[in-house]
């Protein structure tokens, strides 16, 4: 394993960005490992949660953003619930994933594909059109047969609506608008820690 030059590889801008976008104070993490201990996804992670946090503490942007773990976190909140230092760990994992996306890093392609297809469906119909989502994903994923077996079971039980049950056009345009403005890009984070977040800390 290659040596980390703590000083030269320390990306403080990155550290600040994570702190700012997540509203979490990572300096207060003392690496007890509770998050890792309780995380049911550790089994599939390439880096345990506490080490992901550690990388951020040391400003190791490249490594932190290219790990698979940040894509495999399901936000089940076990870590956040049990952190002895009141750090919303899951929120930090979210933020790292956001950054990785912006950098075009996607070690877990299908996870990204699923999220994208889901949101596309929402953007088009205002609500998720499950059948449509399943189809699109099946095709994009290159594993069209994975869930094919489930089709009949759902159909016979009327669990698979063929047509999306959509809200009014008005509502659909509003939702579409949200996505358009989001695509138009957002300002960099300059969020001072505010009421809710500081409160949560106490």
């Amino acid at each position, binding site marked *: 394993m290659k040596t980390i030059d703590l000083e030269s590889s320390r990306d403080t801008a990155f550290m600040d960005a994570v702190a700012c976008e997540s509203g979490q104070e990572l300096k*207060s993490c*003392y*690496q*007890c*490992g*509770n*998050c*890792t*201990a*309780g*995380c049911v996804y*550790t*089994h599939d992670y390439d*880096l*345990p949660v*506490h*080490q992901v946090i550690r990388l951020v503490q040391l400003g190791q942007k490249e490594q932190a953003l290219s790990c698979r773990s940040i894509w495999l976190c399901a936000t089940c909140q*076990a870590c956040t619930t*049990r*952190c*002895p*230092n*009141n750090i919303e760990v899951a929120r930090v994992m979210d933020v790292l994933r956001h950054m990785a996306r912006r950098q075009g890093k996607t070690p877990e392609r299908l996870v990204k594909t699923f999220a994208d297809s889901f949101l596309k469906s929402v953007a088009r119909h205002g609500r998720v059109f499950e059948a449509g989502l399943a189809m699109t994903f099946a095709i994009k994923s290159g594993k069209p047969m994975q869930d094919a077996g489930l089709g009949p079971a759902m159909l016979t039980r009327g669990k698979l609506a063929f047509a999306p049950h959509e809200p009014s056009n008005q509502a659909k345009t509003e939702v579409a608008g949200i996505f358009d403005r989001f695509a138009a890009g957002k300002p960099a984070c300059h969020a001072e820690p505010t009421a809710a977040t500081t409160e949560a800390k106490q």
Partner: protein
Amino acid sequence: MRIGVMICHCGNNIASTVDVEAVAAAAREFPDVVFATDHMYACSDPGQRKIEEVIRELKLDGVVVASCSPRMHEVTFRRAVERAGLNRYMFEMANIREHVAWISLDRKRNTAKATDLVRMAVEKLRVDRPLTPKSFEVQKRVLIVGGGVAGIQAALDCADGGLDVVLVERRQAIGGIMSKLDKTFPTIDCSVCVLGPKMVDAGQNPRITLHALSEVEEITGYVGNFDVKIRKKSPFVDWNKCTGCGACQEKCPSKKVPDAFNENVSLTTAINIPFPQAIPKRATINADYCLRLTKGKCGVCEKICPAGAIDYEMKDEIVTEKVGAVIAATGIDLFDYKKCGEYGGGRYPDVITSLQYERMLSASGPTAGHIKRPSDGKEPKTVAFIACVGSRDRSLNRPYCSGFCCMYTAKQAILTRDHIPDSRAYVFYMDIRANGKGYEEFIRRAQEEYGVEYVRGRVAQVIPVDGPNGPQMLVRGADTLLGRQVELKADLVVLAVGVEAAHGASALAEKLRISYDAYGFFLESHPKLRPVETNTVGVFLAGACQGAKDIPSSVAQASAAAGKVLALLSKDKLESDPQIALVQAIRCIGCGKCERTCPFGAIRMRELRDGSLRAEVVETVCQGCGICSVTCPVRAIQLQHFTDSQLLAEVNALCRTWDETTES
């Protein structure tokens, strides 16, 4: 008036962010100031001699020192000026370290602020008056609250020093937490063998009056003369008659009473003597479980008691004691393990606290020293210890380190391997805190000699599972050194619970008029230099009530507190602080407002010949708060050294200087 001023560098503590020469220069221009200089260390011997020198040479009648907080060195400097023949109250201090140099790096502003503070001090000094303390008799007795190892040690030391001691213990026997321990680290001494004799001494010493099953109800008065009201709870047994034979305990039909002394891992009887070495060895009836007291039937103990000591009608009793000093030694309680739901304490029988485990290890405990897990009484082969439960945890508002859990956990792991040679002991820890004599060595013994497995990482969760032979607890942890998730199927899980201030500690603090921190631990009057004193003169601290401590530290602090008390009460008379209220009779209109507001009853109304009333301050009782000064409609009563004009002198000093700065 001739005033001298000394500005202290305090090495570079002050000088690095305050231009002390400039402050001294400015001071020379202040009214009545005939001398001003700066000095490297005003509190040092040369510093103090310099002060005395100047006072004599320049015939000063007042001195101002600008240095650290008066809470730190006011006493020091007052002694210095007194040595040079000045009255110690003709001295003022400006706090330019804690309140200036240490809170800002802005040299320009700091210097201006320091100058202001010196000006305020000078202006006050100009209206200060010499005061002379009076002396008063003291009670050569000491009250000690709490009969744990600290309280016992303090009691014995005070008694040895010739003081009468009143020892108050909330529970029915003294000994505290130490009496529940099996062995002690790092020597693996038998705990009760070490403590037992001390308990006996405390019980037998003619100088020590022991009030067990009692609590301090109220405490009034002041150093040298405290009046204490003590509530002696009714044991429903006349302890003067009871011989502690235990016959009642054998016959008592109510046998389903949780045994508090055994941390509720076992049951006892409604009437009981908590443990064999109990001091006082007297029976007590638990009113919540006694059939006679709850249902009106039974009465077996009364029938069989050979001494006829049982008294179901017995009521609480209030006794009053006069003492000259108080030592608080209320110790600690354990963190409630139920608050950590993820470990299932209270839900799963085989998840227990370290103190419950300690009782199991103890030969006099419920299992007679054999480790048997609660669920099925089987001997556990795999025991998991989880450290820092309720310690170093902000989410539980317990951010502090409890200090000794690392050590007792190592001890319990060693004892486990001792009791059950074919067992395995795992310790899940975050850091090992072993900063005591022989402590680190002890930890290493646990690891090397006894093969205790240490796993670095907090445990997330404990859940019940079916093991090969019977139910087990699945411990889900992490090994942060490997960066891996780890799991352990344990037969027994021991939670190394942290400590909290004893419940009710803050209430006692309010009765004693001492301060306590956010967690209920009592506040010492200076963390470094006055660790056993409190802000209330005559009240001292011993043991863990001041902050988590292990046995040696508690005993050491207890002896320290005893030493302080002995020194204090070695004098036959004490000097009263002259900073008390004084009535100007010609101004007093006898309205009696002051008498009504004084929290200490230090003011009484005296009737003159013409029948009119005048307020009068009882000097030994007045505590010098000054509430009366503000209450008096005609300002006839003034707190000496903090009079209206003295305080306003400081206010004016500030406002006036500012007028100048704005005009200039």
